[in-house]
Structure formats: C-alpha cells, structure tokens
C-alpha cells in the first residue's frame, strides 16, 4: 500500500453563469485594478488516498470527483497529484523523511 495526495479543482463549466465570479470581477474597480476579466470561482478539495499504487489511487479520486465533488451538469474538474506529499508506507524510513521534507519545502 502507498499513500497519495491529490487535489481536485472544480470550476463552473465554460458558459455556465457564475455569479460569484461576476461579483469578484465587479469588485476589481474598487481596488483600482484594470485589465482583469473572465473571473471564475471554483473549489479545491485536497485529499489523501491509500491504495496499491498511484494508478489505483487516481481511479478512486476520479470516481469521487465525478460522483461527489462535482456536478457534471454544471462543473468540470481536474485532478492534480500534489508533488512531494505522497509516500510509500512500510518501506525504509528515509522515504518517509524525504517525503515530509518535500512537503515542508
């Protein structure tokens, strides 16, 4: 078994009304910022999966992302492996240590 850390980024699909994005965009004038457009507000979910290997872990995340974390009618998702945060359990301690170090970096 190994441990894998992922992030699932969920955002409104292109063309779907995003009132939050519009509100953020509308506030930019108050900050004196120009030239920013097409603001879309989404959601990021980070999670850790224990599985036999990274492929199996990703399959679990795919299912979660499609069935729970996003609504396919209105949202698209992208899965990202969080580098350095994954570790393999039950092997030499150096692996674990280097993984933590990378996480801190």
């Amino acid at each position: 078994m190994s441990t894998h850390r992922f992030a699932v980024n969920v955002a409104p699909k292109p063309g779907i009304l995003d009132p939050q994005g519009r509100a953020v965009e509308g506030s930019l004038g108050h900050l004196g910022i120009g030239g920013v457009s097409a603001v879309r507000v989404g959601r990021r979910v980070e999670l850790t999966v224990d599985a036999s290997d990274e492929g199996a872990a990703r399959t679990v995340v795919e299912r979660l992302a499609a069935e729970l974390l996003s609504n396919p009618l209105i949202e698209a998702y992208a899965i990202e492996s969080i580098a350095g945060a994954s570790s393999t359990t039950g092997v030499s301690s150096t692996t674990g240590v280097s993984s933590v170090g990378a996480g801190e970096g």
Partner: protein
Amino acid sequence: MAVRIGVVVFPGSNCDRDTVHALDRAGAEPIVLWHEEASLRGVAAVVLPGGFAYGDYLRAGVIARFSPVMRAIGAFAADGGLVLGICNGFQVLAEAGLVPGALLRNRSLRFLGRDVHIAATRLDTPFTHALAAAGAPLRMPVAHGEGCYFADDATLDALERDGEVLFRYVDEAGHRASEDDRAANPTGSLRAIAGVSNAAGNVAGLMPHPERAAEAILGSEAGAGIIRSLVESAARAARQPVAVAVGAR
C-alpha cells in the same frame, strides 16, 4: 383511512414540521422518515422538505443524496412512487438525478427570503390537479441561496416540449417572468422555471414553499392546492395495490 406520506428528515432539514402540519391538515397521515432509515415503511408518497441538509456543504443537496433513505427513495421513484421535493428537497432530487437540471447560486448572490408568485403550467399532474387553474398566480415564499434553475438549452427545450416544466415564476397578474425580471424571478432561473418533474411525471421539485402558504393564518393559502394534489394522488396510489391484491385472489 388517511393516506400515509413520509417526510424525510436530514440533519439540517428545517421545514419538516411545517410540511407534516400541512399534510396533516390536507387529510394525510404524515410520518417522519429519518435519513438513516433504509425503509420507507409503506408510505404512498414521500416529501423531501426544505432546509439545509448537511449544512449545504460542498453543494446544496449533494451529501444528502448519498444517505440510506435516498437509496430507498430512488427505488420507490423507479417503481412509480410519488416524490415531491420542496426547496432543499428539490436540490437533493436534482443532485440525485431524479429530476432534470441543477440549482445554481441566485444571480443576485443573495439569500432570498420573500414572497414570489408562481403558476402551474398544467393541471393534469399528481402535484397540480387540485389547483383552480393553470397559469393562475400562486403567492408563496422562497427561502434559499441556490435557486437559479439551470439546464442546457437542449434539455430546456425537451422539458418544455414534454411538459416537464410544472411551475414558472410569474408576476402578480400571472404573466410569465423573464430571466432578468428581478422582481418576479429573483433567482434568475432560466426560462423562469420554478419547478419541474421527471419524464415519468411521478417525481417533482419546486423551490418555493407551498407548505408555508397553505392556510389563511400564514398569509396565503395558494400552496394548499399543491399539498392537496399530492395527498389525493397518494391516496389513489395507495388504493392501487389493494385493487391488485383483490384481483389476484
């Protein structure tokens, strides 16, 4: 004998007692179904009431969708059982795919707690047959942050063609609201849709609260016809299995 109708309670439901009261007044025998229950205890219809199931975390309705009672309701609905979702209950049905479409954040970004007018598009459904007239404005409250009805254009066309749009936002005079009419359609729902049914017509959801406008003391009785429609339809459905049993003897 009064027909038994289940009212589902999720953690965070808050209109369950109003719904029980309105069903009771309409002559039904309402029973409360806890979300952990996997059995519907022989009810003839189910109502998913308003509230904020599971705190509306992630997306309104999505976590409730995976509760044991929803598995039972999915099977019940597939068998033709009557299911009505009100407000958060509509959001749960949409997330579960039991009715078409999705409910987005209101265009105003505001939580809306106010009266609106809706009108039924047709009276030949289990949820509208006791109403006086199609197109007549019915005043009742909305109370939600995510009530902007959305589906893609092809789906919307199909819903209209197949008569699955049950309720629309209208103005006081009963004229259909536009998508930009903040007064009559404050959610910004596409094609002013306030409620829809599934293709089979036995599962329906709407954002406004008929149970909060079902007797004079509440300021409006306009929602009573929707509740009464459901109760009468459930009573008819409850008689059905008996007739089959008698026939089989």
